[in-house]
């Protein structure tokens, strides 16, 4: 049953373009500059001036390769789950690849930190981390990046300043605030990129963190990965305000709305947002409109949406196909691109073999890493 928007909702002034982005065509994402009620739009205005990142050919090929790696890796993970090699909860990132790649490609990996929730394989792969050890974590093996003790939802690489991998919806936002506090405290020039879902955006601690981050001018970029569903609940059924970029308003955090299905647009937005934060001007809230093709986790029958809706996203908004088109226009032949795909399939097949054949952790690992020190 569709619930009518409550009367307290100011007006129906939701920009038509935005509404359409929520339905079919996310090509024309409504901009806050079209949104007369939204005052904190300076960054959006800046971004509107040039919405597509001027990538070199090499950069574009790299984006393509990285997105494809995530796609193929996740497909393989789904397959290994089907074979019983991966257990428990496993959340795939298929469809959302442009978000992690567009944003993380703009980071300074020597300084900046990243934190996210349980849908974390793509963010790990975006660092160029060895797919073997990521897959081995998924299968719970000794060679996994957390020695098999974290699993799909809990992956970390402190070496790369990637801080997980958190299973409590919304917790990573406050933890990200802490990472940002550490950057500021040490004055190390780094910023924190904290991802969370549209569902997580309704958690109280998110707003507690917005408040402190703005109050203390923390170097943090909040990223709502709005894939339009939190498990089986669409944003319309969960959120009184679905224009998530506006939700920093009460905390004076400027908002940006970005088409998360276009890696060049994501990257362009990242340039604007990160610059603002690096200049010490405080947090930014980015809403990345995207879509997950698969169920919430492997055991989700996804009956809350139609097959047509998913197919439409795949056919008309796929981030990888979109970039492929640009590459072809720029003179890359189908064969070149096929070769990339072949190469990636090989990498992923190798990761799967590795993950399947690696040893399980030794029983003695049960009691290691509970505490750091001995008492």
């Amino acid at each position, binding site marked *: 049953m569709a619930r009518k928007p409550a009367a307290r909702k100011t007006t129906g002034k939701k920009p038509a373009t935005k509404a359409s982005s929520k339905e079919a065509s996310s090509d024309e994402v409504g901009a806050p500059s079209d949104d007369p009620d939204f005052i904190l739009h300076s960054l959006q205005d800046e971004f509107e001036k040039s919405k597509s990142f001027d990538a070199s050919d090499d950069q574009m090929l790299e984006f393509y390769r990285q997105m494809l790696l995530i796609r193929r890796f996740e497909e393989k993970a*789904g397959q290994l789950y089907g074979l019983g090699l991966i*257990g*428990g909860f496993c959340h795939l990132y298929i469809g959302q690849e442009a978000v992690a790649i567009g944003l993380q490609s703009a980071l300074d990996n020597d300084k900046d930190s990243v934190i996210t929730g349980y849908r974390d394989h793509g963010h790990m792969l975006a660092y160029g981390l060895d797919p073997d050890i990521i897959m081995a974590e998924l299968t719970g093996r000794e060679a996994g990046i957390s020695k098999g003790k974290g699993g799909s939802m809990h992956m970390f690489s402190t070496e790369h300043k990637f801080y997980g991998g958190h299973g409590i919806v919304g917790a990573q936002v406050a933890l990200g605030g*802490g990472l*940002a*506090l550490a950057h500021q405290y040490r004055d190390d020039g780094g910023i924190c990129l904290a991802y969370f879902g549209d569902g997580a955006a309704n958690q109280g601690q998110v707003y507690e963190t917005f408040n402190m981050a703005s109050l203390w001018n923390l170097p943090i970029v909040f990223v709502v990965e709005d894939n339009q569903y939190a498990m089986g609940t669409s944003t319309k059924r969960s959120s009184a305000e679905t224009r998530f970029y506006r939700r920093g308003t009460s905390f004076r955090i400027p908002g940006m709305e970005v088409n998360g299905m276009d890696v060049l647009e994501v990257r362009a937005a990242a340039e604007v947002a990160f610059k603002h934060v690096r200049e010490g001007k405080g947090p930014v809230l980015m809403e990345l409109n995207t879509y997950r093709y698969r169920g919430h986790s492997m055991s989700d029958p996804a009956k809350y949406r139609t097959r047509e809706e998913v197919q439409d996203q795949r056919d008309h908004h796929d981030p990888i196909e979109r970039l492929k088109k640009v590459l072809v226009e720029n003179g890359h032949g189908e064969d070149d691109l096929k070769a990339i795909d072949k190469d990636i399939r090989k990498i992923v097949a190798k990761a799967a073999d590795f993950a399947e054949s690696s040893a399980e952790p030794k*029983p003695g690992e049960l*009691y290691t890493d509970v*505490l*750091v020190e001995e008492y």
Partner: protein
Amino acid sequence: MAIELKMPALSPTMEEGTLAKWLKQEGDTIEPGDIIAEIETDKATMEFEAIDEGTLAKILIEEGTENVAVGTVIAMLVGEGEDAGDVEAPAASDDGDDDEGSDEVVDKPGEGKDEGRDEPGGASAPKTAPRADDPAIPDGTSFTSVTVREALRDAMAEEMRADDRVFVMGEEVAEYQGAYKVTQGLLDEFGPRRVIDTPITEYGFAGIGSGAAMGGLRPIVEFMTFNFAMQAIDHIVNSAAKTNYMSGGQMRCPIVFRGPNGAASRVGAQHSQNYGPWYASVPGLIVIAPYDSADAKGLLKAAIRSEDPVVFLENELVYGRSFDVPYLDDHVLPIGKARIVREGKDATIVSYSIGVGLALEAAEKLAEEGIDAEVIDLRTLRPLDKETVLASLAKTNRLVVAEEGWPTCSIASEIIAICMEEGFDDLDAPVLRVCNEDVPLPYAANLEKLALIDAPRIVEAVKTICYV
């Protein structure tokens, strides 16, 4: 090469399912992402999606077939340039992998089923080395009488002077000088960068503190009282305590959560609760609950230096009490070591925090009646110093636990279990617990008094186990 499509596991618990419907037929071309079939699992009807591209060469399991085991080959796919006609169904022995001929699902590694426990030994809890005793206090050391409040402040100030990564955050810790004045003077000395007033937002700042610890700082997060940390317990338990383990030792969280805990005076049910047992049940946390000033100082300094997350439980009613503290440059005590605060031979009273004062009071009264009680202050609740407790039990053969807190699932329950498991032969009487009454703390003065543990009740219990 032909690709085998196997019956997938589509939920964490699925072992078999019904192949409800084929959406593609033999000869159809398949693109990655196409839905090939519908499968009914133990929970729902799920779509089976193609990963590889190719042509569906053979369907091996008819639609409508029930109880198809996970892993059974249900169809064959051929790639570009291959001939669907050449495809052979896999030999029957390949079907369903290696559980041929048996109805029982073979429990293979990595398949999400309980593999049973490993032989004890391989994975048994590490034996703790004998714990270090308190460092000897050199002869001629002078002692000064200091309140617990000042001792805690001194500990923080000393550690902040020594290590720039250490900072304090919480409600009213800076400009107001602390709701209970524990952080008095810190803002003046260290400035607002390191003494941070937060909004009233426990969940948020517990998370920010934990994140800062993960990012390399050493936060001291003050809760105005631990009653309000209920909103933050998620970060204490799920974020701080577990990440080192989940990350295979990569990501530490060296943080101290501190503040008053337990019943105060006439503040009613919501402001009077002992969380010692709650936190002490969580692997990955250190839980400390000191009684006197010297322990408060020495253990808080140790807590701040620890690489592990520490819950440091203070007590408002004890803040103003004065005790001698050795005048030393660096008074640090070992975490995880109980202290015998009064030696005795007839019975042991085990306690911690404010209960230690009551236990000592009881011991004095018992002495007047000819019973020589030993009093142990646990000081650390996790890891618990069993050795000291069991050694005392072996000496006195009688034991009472005195705890300002509820009796059910308490530290007292834990000590009793330890005495049963590891000290049974030493017992000359059942171990008794003296706790608060099992009710929310009432406001009325007379009822509150009735609800809380006191020395006469401890005296009674000790007399009971001494059969006098």
